């Protein structure tokens, strides 16, 4: 559902305002329109981030009951990395593998809807969004049923010897990656669809008229032209997938825990705010680093 808003909208310049709007008394109007929303975002998005940064530098020996003191304890960061680097690595590994799987499934799907579906286009698009109408947690729990040890899927895989006689899917990394792939796939498909939909079919015909093989047409025409959607979709998939911990919690075991599980327990169970804050900040910086590195390599900054 939320994915609709991610459709790239292009960065058109604002239409020049109607003549009357240019008069003097309108000079303040945009600021008045912006003030409430911008203030809300400042108060409840920017200020909390500053507070989080401060919390990550609290004296780690303090506690919630005795109160924390800001001692600029930069040592919280290396300590947190040392204690939880496997969960960090796992978050990026699982999200990365899930992204590859999602690309393999999502690209053909987006392409088929955009270029081949004809008058079924809108219906199929609704089909991509529809599964997201069911609650995220309920959907993930349904995967628990599908992947369970006495379910038909495990039975089938055991029969064809893809799984050993007591092989499992639930509570393995496979289950967590499958869950991540499933839950964020629409975020990848929708922007990709928006790009592929604008793709002029005649360009593909021209390419094949000029004796390009289908593969070459894909590599030299389709793929480059779908790049904006591909980049937007990849980011919209990767960012929430890396920070997710619901799939690891419901479909995995502590052996599959991602960094989100650790942060959740630092804030809500162990009440170790400095560590939780340091880990949150590390997660955000790591994601931003990956995102900007990726954007630079992809050679476009238009998405921002």
């Amino acid at each position, binding site marked *: *559902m*939320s994915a*609709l*808003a991610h*459709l790239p*909208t*292009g960065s058109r310049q*604002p239409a*020049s*305002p*109607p*003549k*009357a*709007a240019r008069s003097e008394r309108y000079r303040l*109007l*945009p600021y008045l*329109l*912006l003030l*409430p*929303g911008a203030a*809300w*975002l400042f108060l409840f998005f920017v200020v*909390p981030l500053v*507070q*989080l940064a401060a919390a990550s530098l609290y004296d780690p020996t303090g506690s*919630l009951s005795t109160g924390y003191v800001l001692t600029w304890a930069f040592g919280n960061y290396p300590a947190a990395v040392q204690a939880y680097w496997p969960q960090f690595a796992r978050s990026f590994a699982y999200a990365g593998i899930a992204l590859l799987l999602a690309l393999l499934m*999502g690209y*053909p*799907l987006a*392409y088929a809807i955009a270029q081949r579906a004809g008058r079924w286009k809108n219906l*199929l698009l*609704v*089909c991509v969004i*529809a599964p*997201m109408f*069911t*609650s995220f*947690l*309920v*959907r993930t*729990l349904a995967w628990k*049923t599908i992947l369970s040890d006495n379910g038909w899927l495990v039975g089938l895989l055991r029969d064809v010897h893809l799984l050993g006689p007591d092989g499992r899917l639930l509570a393995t990394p496979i289950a967590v990656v499958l869950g991540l792939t*499933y839950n964020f796939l*629409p975020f990848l498909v929708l922007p990709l669809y928006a790009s592929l939909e604008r793709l002029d079919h005649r360009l593909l015909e021209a390419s094949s008229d000029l004796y390009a093989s*289908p593969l070459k047409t894909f590599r030299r025409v389709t793929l480059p032209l779908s790049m904006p959607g591909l980049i937007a979709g990849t980011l919209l998939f990767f960012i*929430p997938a890396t*920070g997710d*911990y*619901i799939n690891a919690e419901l479909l995995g075991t502590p052996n599959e825990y991602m960094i*989100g599980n650790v942060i*959740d327990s630092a804030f*809500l169970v162990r009440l170790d*705010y400095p560590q*939780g804050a340091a880990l*949150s*900040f590390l*997660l955000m910086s790591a*994601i931003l680093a990956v*995102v900007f590195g990726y954007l630079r390599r992809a050679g476009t900054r238009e998405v*921002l």
Partner: protein
Amino acid sequence: MRISRWFAEHWVLGVALLVLGYLFLPIAVVAALSLNRPSSRLSYDFNEFTLDNWRNPCATADMCDAVLRSVQIGFLATVAATVLGTLMAFALARHRFRGRSGLNVLIFLPMATPELVMGTSLLALFVSGGVPLGFWTIVIAHVMFCVSFVVVTVKARLTGMDGRLEEAAMDLYASEWQTFRRITLPLVLPGIVAAALLAFSLSFDDFIVTNFNSGTTVTFPMYVWGAAQRGIPPQVNVIGTAMFLIALLLVLATSLRGRQARRAALVPVSAREGDRS
């Protein structure tokens, strides 16, 4: 030869259908489990067909309280986020002013920040400010992450609009208020409605941000999370299926209305005026 050619032309459609099947598989399971009488509290397997869960969706009172609370929070967050976001979208689409790019970044960042970070940072703020966690901290958090999506959705509608229609209205001596009321607002309204629906579904389904800022208040996703440890009552699947069906009906209804409106737009104005008299 023929078969391989057919395959080369149609494999994309085949893959697409398989992926759609993958997308719908859990939904089918949720629907099936909503018609299931589980053999035990911790069992997630299909046992016996029953309509009981649909007849008494509130058999577990806690769950219905949680659903109601999620609806209340979703409603408040949607109204606030839609108003704030729409105002910002108008300013961004219609006016030039200093600090535009900075503001764009401020709106973009919440959409690119992991929910986990938004949740923990708000928690850090509320705790250090001594704000008691509960219903209102959830509403504040939901408004915050919904606003950006509203701005993007409404702004897309505004920039896609034909500005000449408003100029025409003004040329025909409509006052600014009349122009706004009779031309601008009706044209933007579908965008605002879409934004509000989006905000509601984001709020209703949010778990991660809520989890950090709810204190002891239980929303529907929080309830499911807690119940996952103790055993899920089958009514949870009833709610899941019902949400799916309601949303699907809404989408189909709006697309049908859109089709009607487009058809109506083809009829000349004079003919429509005649209908009415």
